[in-house]
């Protein structure tokens, strides 16, 4: 087990920066998840930590030891690939034990360790098979077993469940969480799957264009995102945004936007001008037209059985999603009103930074109570 520390780590390919001055401290035994849109550099960052690609600038240390110039094989890490990367010509047993063969362990010792790991991952009945005879889930178990058998200090996962169908993905997600509980090894996990990030992570690192947007517990990211980017990235369906016009009235702002939106808001701290408002789909409710804060036309309803998504068009450019537990009584193409509580309103300035406003403090306090000592950004 070990901590991992990145100090202004950068990587460019042919003068093209992919990772730009990333600072990050990962505690011993922590489960860290890297998320971000494709091309944000999350996989590259993982590969830099693994030593599969050299850094252009900056320093990496694992367990307090600088490893920037140490080859991947000597960093005490294990890597689980999206493609599983099993050796296709070897049996499951040899796939798991291959790394041990070169350590000069006896044949029996290798066999025992392989059997132990195989049992833990429930692949002990498959030891004589080859990867092509396994299902996707079994392959991923073998890949994790191959990583586990070396007793690494740090586990690195690169979208390990992306090639699995959704049922299996959920099952493996729980198994990985259980594995982390059992062995307590530091794990760094790259994914684009919201559910994986929210359920597995002690802390989530949100990356955008090679820089860290925010580091925090899943609850912090959900309730107090630092920027419009993070707010839009965490949560599914994503937060509804609309551009607003702001008029200063003393210390307050009068905001007006599509759908007849008119709000008075008291921005605390930062005095930048609000440019965008955001409300999460689950914070919205459908009310009679004129009695809510916004008005629009109910355009479309998606029935998912356990929840319903209503699409309400505010104007030509803005359509908001409402997440509802039951099917709304209103018909399609009728006028509806939308309402939300003050503390569920997010304000962002022109640069995308979130602005604290009087009501949002209640939300922050609630969120902090909820995380109850869960990680605070390092």
């Amino acid at each position: 087990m070990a901590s991992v520390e990145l100090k202004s780590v950068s990587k460019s390919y042919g003068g093209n920066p992919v990772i730009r001055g990333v600072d990050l401290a990962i505690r011993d035994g922590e489960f860290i998840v890297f998320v971000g849109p494709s091309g944000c550099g999350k996989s590259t960052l993982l590969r830099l930590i693994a030593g599969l690609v050299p850094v252009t600038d900056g320093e990496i240390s694992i367990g307090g030891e600088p490893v920037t110039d140490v080859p991947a094989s000597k960093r005490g890490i294990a890597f689980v690939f999206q493609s599983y990367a099993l050796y296709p010509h070897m049996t499951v047993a040899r796939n798991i034990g291959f790394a041990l063969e070169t350590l000069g362990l006896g044949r029996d010792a290798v066999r025992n360790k392989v059997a132990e790991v195989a049992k833990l991952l429930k692949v002990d009945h498959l030891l004589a098979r080859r990867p092509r005879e396994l299902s996707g889930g079994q392959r991923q178990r073998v890949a994790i077993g191959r990583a586990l058998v070396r007793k690494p200090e740090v586990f690195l996962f690169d979208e390990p469940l992306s090639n699995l169908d959704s049922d299996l993905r959920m099952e493996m997600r729980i198994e990985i969480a259980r594995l982390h509980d059992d062995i307590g090894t530091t794990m760094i996990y790259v994914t684009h799957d919201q559910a994986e990030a929210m359920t597995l992570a002690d802390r989530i690192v949100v990356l955008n264009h090679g820089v860290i947007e925010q580091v925090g517990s899943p609850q912090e990211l959900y309730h107090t995102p630092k920027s419009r980017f993070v707010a839009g990235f965490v949560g599914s369906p994503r937060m509804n945004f609309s551009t607003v016009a702001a008029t200063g009235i003393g210390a307050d702002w009068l905001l007006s936007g599509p759908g007849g939106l008119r709000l008075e808001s008291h921005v605390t701290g930062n005095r930048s001008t609000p440019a965008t408002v955001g409300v999460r789909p689950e914070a919205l409710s459908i009310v009679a037209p004129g009695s809510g804060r916004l008005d629009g036309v109910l355009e479309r309803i998606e029935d998912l059985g356990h929840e319903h998504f209503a699409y309400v068009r505010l104007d030509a450019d803005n359509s908001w999603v409402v997440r509802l537990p039951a099917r709304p009584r209103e018909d399609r193409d009728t006028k509806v009103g939308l309402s939300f509580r003050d503390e569920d309103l997010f304000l962002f300035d022109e640069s995308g930074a979130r602005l604290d406003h009087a009501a949002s403090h209640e939300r922050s306090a609630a969120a902090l109570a909820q995380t109850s000592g869960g990680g605070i950004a390092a």
Partner: protein
Amino acid sequence: MSVKLARADRRAAWMFMAPMLVAMLVVAVWPLARTFYFSFTDAYLDDPTNYSLIGFENYLEVIGDRTWWIAVRNTLLFTVVSVAIETVLGLGIALLINQAIPGRGLVRAAILVPWAIPVVVATKMWEWMLNDQFGVLNQVLISMGLIDHGIAWTANGSLIMGVVIFIDVWMTTPFMVLLILAGLQMIPGEIMEAAEVDGIPAWKRFWSIVLPLLKPAIGVAVLFRVLDALRMFDLAYVLAASSEQVMTASIYARNRLISFQELGIGSAASTWVFLLVAFVAILIIGVLRLDRAAGEAP
């Protein structure tokens, strides 16, 4: 699928196959059958219409001929040595140019040049370069002071097989490189990265991962080259006509057929060459299990 549709499909398949089948019949099956037939006759080339069937006599005549066995020995020696060198060299060069080195594209294109030159041209070119009096190789060796007077590379009995092998290696290594390179590029990069992270030393990565995964590609390349080498004719013939030192089985068959006009015996010798090639091909496919390995792609 309904029976009717299935029947229509089958008919369409046969229609697409028909032109190829006709072409095969005319250019492959018919000449082969004729050769096979003539091998059981005492026909001569000056009057192929006048012959009688004599059973296996021609086959016995060929294997009773000392020259035939010299030709077989030459063919096998040439095949084993040249294909072995080409495989090792081809593997080495393929591994080298598979690395992301600058100018890799140019190297890959340049390496194909020897393979693109017709055998006769390449052989004549090397014959001149190896000429004992005017050849560039002897000039270089003399000017470096390594030898006093020119070596007769293509006349000396013990050197000429070496020269034939050398020219063949020069010409066909690119073919090996290309096939093995294609195999190398089929190996997913993540497998090699996984091995790297696992701390597998470079030699073991090569020996236990790259080589086994390359086996189908190398197997196919070796098979092609061996079949080619076993019926080699042009290179040795252009370089040394019918010198016994480099006479191959194909040259032997050609001599009996054309020089001696013995249509029956020439056909029998050709059939022996065919059997030899077929036997070795089956052996290689069996040993390397190419048929099964083909389905083992990662």
